[in-house]
């Protein structure tokens, strides 16, 4: 097999993955492909548990230690068939709390403590780095196998360069598809789909090699059976401590590995998928394992004695001249390595950006207010973290030289992440678990892991001198890294696992027992442990009415982006029964917003940001009392009274608001006649004065001409006013005749800008448009619609008094509706006036300003109602902003039925 063909295949495969990810993302956005979130895809995405370590290493493991390799898959099998215990709860909590990573989950449970988030992030990064290096190594090794076997004069490629290219390619892929959305709960559909495809490739590849080995190289299962018992594997001895220890270890790892948490909890589109995965994932694991021993046995028999058993999957078909099969196996291994690295780096980058970069930014920024584009900051942080994580992996690979056996590195990493198990199980099952306990346990476990397993893994003379292993540090015998407290003779891995987890658990338990949790911890503890008791565990952690909703909207826009934030606020407002984009800051709303933000920047950062806006301590003793249920009956009763009171207060406030509006309206109605009178009398004054002058007849003709022109102009002005009034009255009655036809939105906006240019023509406006998005054909009344557009643009030209006036026109299509936003950079409209600007004769100052009788927006509102759409003021856009929403295709007059 020519080496360049291999590289070509690899590149083609990568392009295919790009295409799959891209198409999946597209389909998901269009809302077309439900199957992308199906149980099948979910289960296949879980297969990132099987990395290159499984694909190549399992055979090597079996060749060295017999059936022990299976323990790595038996642990996860037990966890999954026992999903009703832990997984179900974990996924539910993850979705309910909008958890973004395992660090976020632990930090969130223990009082949204960022310290814990940092600790978990650090453990995860340290533990994952060798693992990522391992994947790079396996890809490099498999390249090497082909290069060595090639007979076409291809030199062995520089292994370091290969690893570098692979790492860079993976970083690119991950950044492209992993940092599209900020809200981690919106999930990475593209990546998950690509990974599901890779899962199929690796399964098919391993099964193909296995079938080839069993039925082509050997004579079927019976022959294999004989060969196993005849081979060196028959001498395998089951070591009870390793057997049970490794099952437990792999069970812990599948729960705690950041990448597993990512696909298991964060990317979980539907909790019901878990039921399918509970048996389908063990099935996948069993299928991946079933041919491992046959391949190992046949490999040991057929290949020369010095061959690396870690590469049997490749070398066995290659030695038989089966280039195609070897190629498939190679792609399988490539898939295993890449999918693991991609998900691991997404998970780690989320953790690094949410728990290290965001908190640093929050504490370092000069002002209290959240300014600038936080989204971009977070996305950049993620991108750099992805590059950083892969860079670390590459660095480890090139420093360690990629020497150790594959299995050893994987297990060391497992023990590292398993340190999170006590804190995590405590988080979801024990309400008494506290931050102090979790911190102590994690730190002690991590330290012991590093001391007894990670650092010694560099070998005698690596980090520790040889004397350290023999006599302990400073000659203290009971501190020998591989015989702690004098317990010698244990397997080093089991020794480290035993001591680190025991002391970790002990510290966690004791720390929790002697410390007292903070209020937030207690509320979160209740929400986690009792996650299935839906209603009662909602922590009412925020107090209402201390925060300006507009400020919250600004914050949310900076983090979630304009459109998602507006949609979220609009939905919340309509759920509360109010119109517009500003819901009341009820505790429920603040809580929902916090969780929404937590999905983007992590629980701790979201909590801190809302806390700053909402002011002072959030959890009161009263809240806790309500949450604590020793006196549940009384408390709940009073709690309900409380809720009723809040509800009544809110209703009262809404009534007050309505009343204020009515009063203002009635004042306006009163003023209506006076306004009409004023608007009619003003032109009449000039007309009367000049006509009297002209009647006297002693005016020079040239002056008389000018005066006649004035009379003429003022008469036109009068007519226009009457036209407007008539127009309004026709529109309000719904008796208007609409001239429905197809019109290009782009042309309508063009027309509006041209027509409005006559208003204050001296002002130079910068107009920002996105022409591709305007390429829409609407079925509507184009003249009426452009009347609205002209009005909005003219208003901007009239009232936007920025030094460099700008007008942004954004067009979006949402299903069958079209949204057109007009946003300028002027002073905007004060909050108390936003309610009345669409009323007749509503002008912002009492004094008349250039032209206009204050009917423009009232007419716009009526036109939009007639066109089946709306016009609304958009708050918090940094200027006056109007949103026009209308149907893409208006079929008949919306009032036709009513009329």
């Amino acid at each position, binding site marked *: 097999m020519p080496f360049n063909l291999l590289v070509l295949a690899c590149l083609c495969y990568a392009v295919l993955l790009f295409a799959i990810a891209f198409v999946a993302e597209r389909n998901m956005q269009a809302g077309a492909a439900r199957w992308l979130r199906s149980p099948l895809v979910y289960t296949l995405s879980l297969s990132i548990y099987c990395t290159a370590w499984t694909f190549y290493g399992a055979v090597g493991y079996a060749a060295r230690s017999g059936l022990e390799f299976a323990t790595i898959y038996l642990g996860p099998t037990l966890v999954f068939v026992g999903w009703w215990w832990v997984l179900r709860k974990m996924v539910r909590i993850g979705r309910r709390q909008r958890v973004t990573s395992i660090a976020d989950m632990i930090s969130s449970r223990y009082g949204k403590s960022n310290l814990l988030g940092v600790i978990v992030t650090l453990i995860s990064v340290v533990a994952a780095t060798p693992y990522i290096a391992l994947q790079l190594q396996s890809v490099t090794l498999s390249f090497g196998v082909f290069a060595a076997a090639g007979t076409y004069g291809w030199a062995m490629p520089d292994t370091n360069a290969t690893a570098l290219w692979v790492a860079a390619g993976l970083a690119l892929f991950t950044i492209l598809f992993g940092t599209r959305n900020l809200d981690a709960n919106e999930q990475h559909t593209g990546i998950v789909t690509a990974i599901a495809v890779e899962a199929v490739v690796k399964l098919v590849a391993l099964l193909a090699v296995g079938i080839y080995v069993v039925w082509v190289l050997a004579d079927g299962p019976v022959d294999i059976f004989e060969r196993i018992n005849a081979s060196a594997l028959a001498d395998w001895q089951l070591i009870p401590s390793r057997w049970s220890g490794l099952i437990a270890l792999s069970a812990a790892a599948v729960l705690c590995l950041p990448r597993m948490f990512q696909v298991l909890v964060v990317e979980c589109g539907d909790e019901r998928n878990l039921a399918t995965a509970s048996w389908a994932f063990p099935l996948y694991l*069993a299928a991946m394992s079933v041919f491992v021993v046959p391949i190992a046995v046949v490999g040991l028999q057929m290949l020369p004695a010095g061959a690396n058993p870690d590469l049997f999957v490749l070398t066995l078909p290659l030695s038989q001249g089966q280039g195609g099969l070897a190629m498939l196996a190679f792609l399988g291994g490539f898939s295993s390595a890449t999918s693991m690295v991609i998900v691991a780096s997404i998970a780690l980058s989320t953790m690094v950006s949410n728990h290290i970069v965001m908190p640093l930014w929050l504490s370092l920024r000069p002002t209290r207010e959240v300014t600038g584009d936080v989204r971009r900051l977070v996305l950049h942080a993620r991108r750099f973290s992805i590059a950083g994580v892969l860079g670390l992996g590459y660095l480890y690979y090139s420093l360690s030289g990629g020497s150790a056996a594959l299995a050893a590195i994987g297990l060391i990493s497992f023990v590292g992440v398993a340190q999170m198990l006590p804190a995590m199980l405590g988080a979801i099952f024990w309400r008494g678990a506290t931050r102090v306990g979790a911190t102590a346990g994690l730190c002690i476990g991590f330290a012991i892991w590093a001391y007894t397993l990670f650092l010694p893994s560099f070998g005698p003379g690596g980090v520790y001198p040889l004397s350290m292993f023999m006599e302990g540090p400073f000659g203290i015998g009971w501190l020998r890294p591989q015989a702690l407290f004098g317990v010698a003779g244990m397997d080093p891995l089991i020794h480290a696992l035993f001591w680190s987890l025991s002391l970790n658990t002990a510290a966690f338990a004791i720390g929790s027992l002697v410390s007292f949790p903070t209020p937030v911890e207690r509320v979160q503890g209740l929400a986690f442990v009792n996650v299935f008791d839906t209603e009662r565990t909602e922590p009412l952690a925020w107090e209402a009415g201390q925060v300006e909703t507009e400020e919250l909207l600004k914050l949310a826009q900076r983090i979630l982006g304009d459109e998602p934030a507006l949609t979220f606020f609009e939905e919340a407002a309509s759920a509360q029964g109010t119109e517009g984009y500003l819901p009341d800051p009820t505790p429920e709303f603040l809580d929902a917003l916090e969780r929404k933000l937590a999905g983007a920047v992590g629980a701790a950062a979201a909590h801190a940001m809302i806390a700053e806006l909402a002011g002072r301590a959030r959890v009161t003793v009263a809240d806790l009392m309500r949450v604590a249920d020793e006196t549940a*009956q009384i408390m709940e009763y009073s709690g309900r009274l409380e809720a009723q009171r809040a509800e009544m207060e809110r209703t009262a406030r809404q009534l007050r608001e309505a009343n204020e509006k009515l009063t203002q309206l009635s004042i306006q109605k009163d003023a209506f006649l006076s306004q009409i009178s004023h608007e009619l009398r003003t032109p009449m004054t000039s007309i009367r004065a000049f006509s009297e002058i002209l009647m006297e007849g002693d005016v020079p003709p040239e002056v008389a001409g000018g005066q006649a022109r004035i009379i003429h102009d003022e008469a036109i002005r009068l007519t226009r006013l009457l036209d407007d009034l008539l127009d309004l009255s026709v529109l309000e009655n719904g008796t208007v005749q609409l001239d429905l036809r197809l019109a290009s939105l782009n042309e309508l906006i063009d027309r509006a800008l041209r027509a409005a240019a006559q208003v204050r023509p001296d002002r130079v406006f910068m107009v920002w448009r996105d022409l591709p998005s305007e390429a829409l054909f609407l079925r509507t009344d184009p003249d009426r619609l452009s009347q609205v557009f002209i009005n909005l643009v003219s208003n901007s030209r009239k009232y936007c008094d920025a030094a460099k006036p700008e007008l942004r026109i954004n067009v979006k299509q949402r299903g069958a509706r079209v949204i057109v936003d007009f946003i300028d950079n002027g002073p905007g409209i004060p909050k108390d006036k936003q309610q009345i600007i669409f009323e007749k004769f509503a002008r912002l100052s009492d004094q008349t300003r250039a032209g206009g009788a204050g009917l423009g927006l009232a007419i716009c509102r009526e036109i939009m109602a007639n066109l089946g759409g709306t016009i609304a003021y958009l708050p918090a856009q940094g200027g006056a902003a109007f949103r026009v929403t209308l149907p893409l295709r208006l079929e008949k007059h919306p009032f036709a039925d009513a009329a």
Partner: protein
Amino acid sequence: MRRRSPVFLARRAYRLRRLRDAARLLPVAGAFLLLLPILWEPPEASDRNTAWDGIYLFAVWGGLIALAAWLAQGLAAGEDSDEATDAENGPDGPRRGER
């Protein structure tokens, strides 16, 4: 307010409860069966049979998968209808006090 749940359940709800018990017991049984080889494989025994060990292992594995598949079907069907009852009578009975 504590919801009053009936002492005896209708047949369907009763079956669903037992199905959940089974789901909780399955990993325990699985762990027991997977750890069993430790007992019959004393290091000094001479006639070991790796192939048979492998068959035992995969048989247990396959059995667990089949049982889990069967249980998952019933559990997924019951999940939507009976969430609240499950919460009231979770594995350790009503869990209310902060312990």
